[in-house]
């Protein structure tokens, strides 16, 4: 059964939410879901852009009280 990992990157400027995701995605199994929490509005664009380029599945995002929740699935 696919697992879900949360990457809490709120308040992370360096290396930042996308870099945290790039490092962490290698540690989950193909098919597993990840939810990235980010306080940086840029993540809502940066992360889907990278997912598309590399070929992972973007599952959607929402903003709640200044925190962006970005969901994805490792596809390869």
């Amino acid at each position, binding site marked *: 059964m696919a697992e879900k990992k949360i990457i809490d990157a709120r308040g992370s400027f360096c290396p930042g939410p996308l870099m945290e995701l*790039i490092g962490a995605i290698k540690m989950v199994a193909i098919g597993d879901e990840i939810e990235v929490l980010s306080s940086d509005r840029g993540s809502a664009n940066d992360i889907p852009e990278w997912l598309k380029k590399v070929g992972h599945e973007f599952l959607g995002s929402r903003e709640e009280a200044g925190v962006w929740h970005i969901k994805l699935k490792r596809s390869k």
Partner: protein
Amino acid sequence: MKILIVGGGMGGTILANNVARTLKSELKSGKVQITMLSASDRHMYQPGLLYVAVGRMTPDELYRDQASLLESGIQFHVDPVETFMLDDNQVKTKGGKVHSYDIMVIATGSRMWPDAIPGLKENAEFFYTEESAVKMFHRLRQFEGGKIVIAMGVPHKCPMAPLEITFMLNEYFIERGIRDKVQIHYTYPIGRVHTLENVAKWAQPEMDRVGITYETLFNLKSVDGEKRVLHSEEGTEVIYDMLISIPAHKGMEVIETNKMGQNGWIPTDRYNLNMEGRSNVFILGDTTNIPISKAGSTAHFEAETVGANIAALVRFGAPVRKYDGKVFCFIQTGSEKATYAMFNYLQPPDPKAPTRAIHWFKLAYNKLYWISARGLL
């Protein structure tokens, strides 16, 4: 009370000295005992490796005798931990000794993991160890022209190093008089030339100004050493004559073998800095899983917080401080100028234009570091 510090790098050393100095009377009376376990009798100034690679420092300048940096009263043993027995509040060392503790601080650092990328280890130059930095120094001296590509993995320690080595290489080849024969090509994993937006805003036009080419959204997938080609996860390729890499990192093997954190990153509370689920075990520096720079200054400021809290736990039974995410990183932008980035969990960095003054301060810090390690600066 027994305080055990595992790791003699920057974080562990500053912490040990801070606690020893604050709890001097308790140490003297025997109420407190501080023990440090390390794999080495030497302390390395890791930021100096960048300078060794470009011939601006010699390897001997990187080291001091570890015992000489420690306050009296700290029991120091070159006998690394092999087994953590957290439920028993004990560790067992390589030498077979069992140490029990009331409070433990783990500051074991991180290591390069070039094996993560097929073909990288055997085809790239690195500068994150003495051996690799010296090898890279010799390779650079022999390089007479062609395309140098800088590529990195994630995560890596010292997030400024990719820019630093790139700009220092620019100056290195200018000084050698062959800059027109060398193409310096910088690649970076995300969609700008540095993860810090304000740093990228400064760095990209600077790269344009000095003729450094770049490609963003480039994550190393494999290296074909025969054809001298890098392949990215994004499906692109880059040809190189010389490849310089800052590879992905892992925590130390002992953390992995003891199953304390995937890839050696220990789950850590980002404010209290205790290991998740263990109120008497604190984690410092690179080996935390906190989404923060793996940098010396991070370890330094974390050590200050944990040191204050350990002293308070001994004297008052409760911690007194929280870590606010403070990081301070110099950015060496060439052989004569530098700037810095300072930030915390709430405040992003806003680096100013590089100056000679900051460069001289960085050069001074390369020497002043030893006072920092003693917990005095």
